[in-house]
């Protein structure tokens, strides 16, 4: 009887899956086998080779195609009579609005980033559709159920902000390999190959000319006919040599620190590289369909091998040469991409040379790629288990079996004999700005900060709004949308550049702002408090938002370094930044006591774990 009821609840259900990746493939398969007959699936990604070890619905011949579409076709092969609809699109697109969400009985998330998770959470709240949320990393995973008014929403628990590092740690006093990676990727790579107009904290002035005039030329400017190798050596000597030398002259900095060693190309590399390796001319063999890489011409094959200083220096020069020789058109528009082989080679080499300077252990390309690309550890088994748990919760939701809803953790080490540990879901957090109406507090210098700062650093970056609107009293200060006329757009753009206290409706101490996102149907109030000074190191954004995310560990130094300190809650934090309440809950359930037992990760480095977390990493480590 119960079984029949269950079957009819499943058969009649219309479900939305967001994500057709690691969890998504397993989930779609298990849904179909369980008897679900109407499944919609959204995923913007296309298939890559590194997906194939676990996303079992995909084959090598599918590389480059839409994940949602290929997953659909694959599952229809063994369940031909069900309805699966695929959308090769971003879930944040406007067509997926509240009305779209309302047609579903339950939404199942198999996402890989915080931003999209928050967006879906808000739409589910607005549409009053139950959400089953999930995440995995390595052998750890979790499934949670979010039902408006009954259980906590995805954002009731604070999510730690993406890790940021103090500017000076990156620019002058790195102590960990990850600092060198951030420097190589976000400063050096961005400076050489990215948008020239972007702010960049890299020192670009050469020593000798720095004193003479403010208008000194940028060392990074390459003159028309400058030989690429000469240019590469100039950059090398500047960033690894004279910049370090300049930094050393500031004695104060090195009082309690190890002094770095300047490295110049002439001390590491032979005078001319052309004879030694065929370089740019000869490597045209690998041109065409294969990727541009500096490794083959240098005889380097194994990405897991550790390169010495000389090899790193050769890779540095060779990769730089190849960018100018083979990918000239892209220079000025490149952003680091972990799937861009040449970019990974360049960043690995640059980070290692810098690490050598600062006596930080060097890393292989494989490891460096993991750090630079925030690569998620992933295995098929955990995804399969988590997908099974999602379906079990989804069925309970469809049967409205409220007493039986559980959040479940998949552990690597048993806790109280359990590898799969179910816990009763929590009630909504009454102070949650997303699912309740509690106002946020913002401390800001209203006489200095511009509306643009507020929009970029708070409304978009912290509140995760996609199409924001800002009101002060009855006055509309800012809005985004397709239906605005030119005059309004001009008006809003003008407002963006104005200091808060000088806006048409001035924002001052005590002002209450209403911030809304029309697509997410989320609205929240912000109480503004004027504050004159901010600590540049601790509060680099020049504003403090409270009632949002009190993430104590924004600094790499104070964060924990062990994989297994992610006790059980994977979407929460790998950096020890759980809130007090979270800690209390975790202790109630006596989580695993294996914090110090690491046995799974041989090729990993602690540094990786600090920024490794599929649920919380943003694309970019912010260095402001």
């Amino acid at each position, binding site marked *: 009887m119960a079984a029949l009821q269950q079957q009819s609840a499943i058969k009649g259900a219309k479900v939305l899956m967001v994500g057709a990746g690691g969890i998504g493939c*397993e989930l779609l*398969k*298990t849904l*179909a*086998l*369980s008897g679900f007959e109407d499944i919609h699936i959204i995923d913007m990604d296309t298939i890559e*080779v*590194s997906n*194939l*070890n*676990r996303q*079992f619905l995909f*084959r*090598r011949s599918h590389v480059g195609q839409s994940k949602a579409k290929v997953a659909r076709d694959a599952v229809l*092969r*063994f369940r*031909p009579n069900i309805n699966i609809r695929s959308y090769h699109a971003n879930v944040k697109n406007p067509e997926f609005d509240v009305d779209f969400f309302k047609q579903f009985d339950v939404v199942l998330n198999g996402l890989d980033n915080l931003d999209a998770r928050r967006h879906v959470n808000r739409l589910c709240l607005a549409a009053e559709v139950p959400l089953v949320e999930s995440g995995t990393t*390595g*052998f750890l995973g979790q499934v949670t159920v979010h039902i408006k008014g009954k259980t906590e929403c995805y954002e009731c628990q604070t999510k730690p902000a993406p890790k940021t590092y103090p500017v000076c740690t990156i620019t002058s006093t790195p102590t960990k390999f990850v600092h060198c990676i951030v420097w190589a990727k976000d400063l050096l790579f961005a400076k050489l190959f990215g948008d020239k107009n972007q702010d960049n904290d890299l020192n670009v002035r050469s020593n000798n000319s720095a004193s003479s005039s403010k208008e000194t030329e940028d060392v990074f400017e390459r003159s028309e006919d400058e030989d690429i190798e000469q240019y590469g050596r100039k950059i090398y000597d500047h960033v690894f040599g004279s910049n370090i030398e300049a930094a050393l002259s500031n004695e104060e900095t090195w009082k309690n620190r190890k002094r770095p060693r300047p490295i110049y190309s002439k001390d590491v590399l032979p005078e001319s590289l052309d004879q030694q390796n065929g370089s740019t001319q000869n490597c045209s063999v690998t041109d065409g369909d294969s990727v541009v890489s500096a490794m083959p011409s240098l005889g380097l*094959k*194994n*990405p*897991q091998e550790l390169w010495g200083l000389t090899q790193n220096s050769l890779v540095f020069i060779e990769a730089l040469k190849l960018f100018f020789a083979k990918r000239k058109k892209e220079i000025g528009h490149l952003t680091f991409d972990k799937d861009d082989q040449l970019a990974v080679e360049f960043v690995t080499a640059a980070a290692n040379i810098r690490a050598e300077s600062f006596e930080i252990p060097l890393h292989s390309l*494989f490891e460096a790629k*993991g750090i630079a690309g925030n*690569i*998620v*550890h*992933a*295995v*098929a*088994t*955990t995804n*399969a*288990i988590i*997908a*099974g*748990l999602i*379906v*079990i919760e989804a*069925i309970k939701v469809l049967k409205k079996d409220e007493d039986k809803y*559980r959040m479940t953790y*998949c552990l*690597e*080490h*048993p806790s109280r*004999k*359990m*590898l*799969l*540990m*179910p816990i009763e879901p929590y009630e909504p957090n009454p102070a949650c700005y997303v699912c309740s109406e509690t106002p946020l507090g913002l401390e800001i210098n209203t006489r200095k900060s511009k509306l643009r700062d507020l929009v970029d650093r708070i409304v978009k970056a912290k509140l995760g709004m996609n199409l924001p609107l800002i009101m002060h009293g009855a006055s509309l200060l800012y809005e985004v949308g397709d239906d605005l006329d030119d005059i309004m757009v001009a008006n809003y753009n003008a407002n963006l550049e104005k200091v808060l206290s000088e806006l048409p409706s001035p924002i001052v101490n005590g002002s209450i702002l209403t911030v809304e996102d029309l697509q997410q149907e989320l609205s929240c109030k912000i109480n503004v408090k004027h504050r004159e000074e901010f600590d540049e190191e601790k509060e680099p954004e020049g504003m403090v938002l409270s009632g949002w995310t009190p993430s104590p560990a924004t600094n790499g130094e104070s964060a924990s370094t062990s994989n297994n300190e992610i006790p059980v809650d994977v979407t929460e934090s790998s950096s020890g930044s759980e809130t007090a309440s979270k800690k209390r809950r975790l202790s109630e359930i006596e989580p695993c006591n294996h914090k*110090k*037992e690491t*046995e*799974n*990760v*041989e*090729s*990993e480095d602690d540094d990786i774990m600090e920024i490794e977390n599929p649920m919380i990493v943003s694309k970019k480590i912010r260095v402001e």
Partner: protein
Amino acid sequence: MDGEELTEQETALYDRQIRVWGAGAQRRLSKSHVLVSGIKGTVAEFCKNIVLAGVGSVTLLDDRLVTEEAFNANFLILPDENAYAGKTVAEICCDSLKEFNPMVHVSIEKGDLSTLGVDFFEKFDVVIIGYSSRATKKAVNEKCRKLKKRVAFYTVDCRGSCGEIFVDLQNYNYTKKKLDETVECELTFPSFEEAVSVPWKPIPRRTAKLYFAMRVIERFEETEGRKPGECSLFDLPGVLKLKKELCEGNSVSENHIPDSLLERLVSGNTEFPPACAIIGGILGQEVIKVISGKGEPLKNFFYFDAEDGKGVIEDISQ
């Protein structure tokens, strides 16, 4: 290390999992040979997992002809009658599994598990027995134990939304890191026969009820001459009677095993696919651990019940 390096192709394909268990473990995986018998939903899940992980070879043993019943919960069998007519479950699953990872050698063997000789098992590092009678499990386990090399032995069953995994690694040494030290650990496993015939009385009261319930069902099928999993609600009175006898024989109270649990087990002759995914996932993880020699293996039973959502390890040895 084991000498050879991973090829470029392997490094690219296995990138994300090498980041979990390391290149050494990946090499050991690629040299291991796994025998799998009795391919229903849970075992199909397991096969997918280890083929994706990149073991050296998987050998399938299941001579049942494919019928409609066979593709419940088993996504390796496509419901195309023209394709499966006259073929065995092993043959059809073999074709599907090959596609998942061209680097793994997937093949089939024919024959009855209980009559295969000791030598047959020597080729394998891991043996998985799905959906077999108590007698077959015992016989295969004993053959594996006769071999000089250690063969990791597992049985797996899923009934409705409940499942059981049994593990016998005989004497197993592994290392684990404690603080900064690497500690050598040794575990001694009882055989299948020993583990299922432990007297009930001394077993701690909080032990998963499924352990006892599965023993009742197993015994019922044996005495009634049923194939594994071939029970229905009509058998409930007989099962409850047997339970009473077993409880009395073990001098434990009848409440030791809830009737409702036995009722679910006898009526659960089709597998619940989410439970298959979960149990097949845990089994995959265990086998990967043991082949790679990394991490503490589970000893010696694992239970999952979708009803309460718990996945529990029970150590049941004398």
